[in-house]
């Protein structure tokens, strides 16, 4: 159910013209890396990192300056040889799990992974019960 949005939505995609910072975007905010493999890895990572100033968008989908700065960081680190997982951990160390759209298995997220397994078991049980009785 998609809904029209409020000012918060505006801030995510389009900057209000008042109180706008005027510095140019970071060098690699809108510039791709030369090496296509590196750029692909960076892009994949950026699509799973959260823009902290937006209302639920990845940094790959946002024009917010901070998202641009984060993209810059991701790209220069990938170019410098860091692995995407290292960069993700670096960000999680600073902002917590909130910054990553890819939940890792941990003390706070284990139900997210346990419940699908439970669902598989329940689905299997339902199907077995129904058909073993009837066979």
């Amino acid at each position: 159910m998609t809904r029209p949005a409020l000012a918060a939505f505006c801030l995510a995609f389009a900057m209000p013209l008042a109180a706008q910072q005027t510095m140019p975007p970071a060098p690699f905010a809108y510039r791709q890396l030369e090496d296509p493999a590196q750029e692909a890895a960076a892009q994949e990572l950026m699509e799973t990192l959260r823009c902290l100033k937006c209302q639920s968008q990845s940094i790959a989908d946002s024009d917010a300056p901070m998202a641009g700065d984060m993209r810059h960081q991701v790209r220069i680190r990938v170019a410098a040889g860091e692995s995407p997982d290292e960069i993700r951990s670096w960000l999680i160390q600073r902002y917590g799990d909130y910054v990553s759209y890819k939940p890792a298995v941990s003390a706070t997220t284990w139900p997210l992974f346990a419940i699908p397994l439970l669902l598989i078991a329940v689905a299997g049980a339902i199907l077995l019960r129904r058909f073993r009785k009837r066979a």
Partner: protein
Amino acid sequence: MIAELGLAALWLAAALAALQMIAGFLALRAGNASELAALIRPAAIVQGVLVTFSFAMLVWLFAITDLSVKLVASNSHSLKPLVFKLSGTWGNHEGSMLLWVMVMGLAGALIALVERRLPERTMNATLAAQGVVSLGFYAFLLLSSNPFERLPVPAAEGMGLNPLLQDIGLAFHPPTLYLGYVGLSVAFSFAVGALLTRQVTPDFARAMRPWVLAAWIMLTIGITAGSYWAYYELGWGGWWFWDPVENASLMPWLAATALLHSASVLASRDALRTWTIMLGVVAFSMSMVGTFLVRSGILTSVHAFAVDPERGTFILVLLGIFIGGALLLFALRANTISEGERFALASREGALVFNNVMLSAILAIVLLGTLYPLLTEAFDVRVSVGPPYFNPVGAIFAIPMFAVMAVGPLLRWREDRIDRIGKEVALTAALVVAALVLTSLLTEIGLLPLLGLAFGIGLAVASWLPLRGRNLARTPLATWGMVVAHFGIAVALIGMASESAFTKERLAAIEQGDTATVGPWTVVLEGVEPVAGPNWTAVQARLSARYGDGEARELTPQSRNFWAPPQQTTESALATRWNGQLYAVVGDRSPDGRWQLRLWWKPFVTLIWYGGLLIALGGLLALIGRVLTDLRHRRLAARIAERRADREALA
């Protein structure tokens, strides 16, 4: 004057809903027909008329930009083009809530007017249930979200509508979505009515089916339209993000799809009674939960409405009463629903049970992922759950479902053997494996897109197999509907996989006259000019795009500045070919004079939405088929009754 008329109509409609509710429940208890029972249908019909009138008044107020009404002053502007003034009626919380109750009222009126196939008692119970739910939402509107509230002093000028919503997509997306979303209330009321009167029968399923189909078709169109709108409007080419509000529209769709199939089984084979009732309740419950999540502000989303915990509490109470009540009724009464006919594992019913279980599992996953951040926040921990979770975990259940979807329609009812359809199964399996092998040899794409592509191709062929050996001219329309809808799923799947795997992106900062390339396209920046619109000014880039050696096409992406409210948006430009779309966006100019250009080449991305439309078309064919069959049966029954009467008269 107009606002007061609209408000008065709304109060009257609410009163009629109350009458509908009371009369319905009294009639239920009294047993045989009473005077009160005779009022139920007329009450529902007049209620529908009144609430539509009320909505029409609100639309009128927006059309003339009556700035003495608070809602118009905060959401409209006199310079807005008329079409956006009108669609702005539902571009806000109160207006869209009024749209919600209007659809509910119209749905109730329509069943009251048209539905004659159920025993009168069950109809009364159904209309009573519809009345209860409507009453709750009328109360919400009238007591906490009055759309007709006046300002003590009329505003000098309106605050305007969010520029991102000033788009033709806004005209289409919410109304179709609501027709679907809220149309499912009919299924809910039917399920409650059937539980109350213990009438879970094939007749009940046959009666409910067209209503579910109609709501489901609109919901499919609404979601498809919303996805396409987000794709071209937001400037990044994304078409689904598992955002909480997007999920809030998907969950009812998943439940409704399962309900559709379940009701079909109940109608033709008198099996899956409990499933059908459960799904009927769940589908609309998901709609209501979705409304709550979006309007209460407890979840962060780009789509979220006014953050107002007070309104959220009101809706939560309504939810507690309606969903809690229905689920309680289910727990108490479902035991009395006798088990229907039996069937074997390898049978069409078996395949449909599998389908139900898988769809319900996916629904549970989406619900879990959407609500999980809410749960952790109660412990002061913040997590984000997004595509990297939903895609793979959903696929665990979706892939087996697609496999069964390919062969299920070929199975016979009640009992069948897999080896009877051995050839078809082998063909489909061979296609899937061949696609898997070829694609992984020729390209390097991730596992999920690979599976999606392979199963999409397999399903695309398999969906037509049920027509094999049939006289096509005499195949029922409903069967055509099934084939087209399943084919639509395959098409959409191929589109999604292709977009995910083969999209090429190019960010370029170029000067006028320079070239950028993306995939097989060559794009030249011919020039950049200022342009102006009714309530905006923009910087427009003129691009000349050429596919390979083909002819050059002109694309004009814009970067727009609105002033009421002040905001900047990007308008993307699309060049569509049979094999995909070029997506172009112009950004800011860097200090050295070069323009930021964002280009994407998305092969076969349009299949996603064509697939969605095909699914809806399939549903429409099935709906028409069923309605025509039903009319034919009624005419036949009427003629038989007439003949019998004649014979008796002669005797």
